[in-house]
């Protein structure tokens, strides 16, 4: 069964890398966006297992995003992704899903 992971960032280059990395693993389905409205629309349309918050999201935006996402999916895990599609990604996701 695939784990659906939504990545929300601001940097288009990092978002592209994240999309490639997340979808390179058959057990993960990655959806990567740079726009908060788009992210919320995706959450309204399908079940998400894990949300990764990427770079450039300020504190106010983060609070709003978390509030809106948790209102739609109270049990979804939302974590900060550090490093930008780097060597930390696998560990972060495994830790969150454990």
């Amino acid at each position, binding site marked *: 069964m695939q784990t659906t992971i939504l990545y929300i960032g601001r940097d288009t280059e*990092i978002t592209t*890398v994240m999309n490639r990395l997340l979808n390179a693993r058959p057990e993960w389905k990655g959806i990567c966006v740079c726009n908060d409205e788009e992210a919320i629309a995706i959450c309204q349309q399908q079940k998400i297992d894990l949300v990764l918050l990427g*770079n450039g*999201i300020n504190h106010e935006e983060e609070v709003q995003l978390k509030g809106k996402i948790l209102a739609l999916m109270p049990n979804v895990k939302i974590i900060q992704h*550090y490093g930008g599609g780097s060597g*930390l990604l*696998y*560990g972060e996701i*495994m*830790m969150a899903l454990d």
Partner: protein
Amino acid sequence: MSQFILHKENTRGHADHGWLNAHHSFSFANYYNPERMHFGVLRVLNDDLIDGGMGFGTHPHDNMEIITIPLAGAIAHKDSMGNSAVIKSGEIQVMSAGTGVSHSEFNALADKQLNLLQIWLFPNKKNVTPRYDQQSLDVEAMHNNFQQILSPSADDAGVWIQQDAWFSLGKFDEGFETEYKIKKAGNGVYAFVISGEVTINGQTLSKRDGLGIWDTDSISFKANTADAEVLLMDVPMELN
């Protein structure tokens, strides 16, 4: 009462990609060990051997303090901030990835293997403007002394980063003893033995062993061999 965690050299994660032989003190890439996720804000300690001319093509980073210390050889660095540099053994490089930066890292020499430590710390502030720096290390000052090579302040010795962390590096004569005082209350120290054998707080450590110590304000140190070289990473134990 101080607490500690011992990471013996042979318990590190290992990945052999042919051109890259990497050992990971903490979970990294495909090495995942939930018991080895971080020591405080210290998230990555990679000990990489890179074949001549080989390296990492352009790739992005964000919100991470990335410190590179070549132990042997030289690394060629290029980044999206316009920096292009070679960092040799005896130097230290720091990059605050902040809002995002892309860089490449290659062994600068075609005929010599590169050995480097790459260390990543969580920053104490997200989304800062990316920044790059490199400095030569004062090798003479490291003799029988934990010489500071990194701090949170641009006005202090060594490079600076966006975190309340201090790194010190020393090379010691056999039998030399000293005490290291932790720089900030609440910080712990992760000691990484680059070479030789040492005793820290009663724990005997060999080459590439790591020892994390916290809930204390100082650590005791003794060099057991003549070639002892140790990196101390004094880092906040609480994630920001």
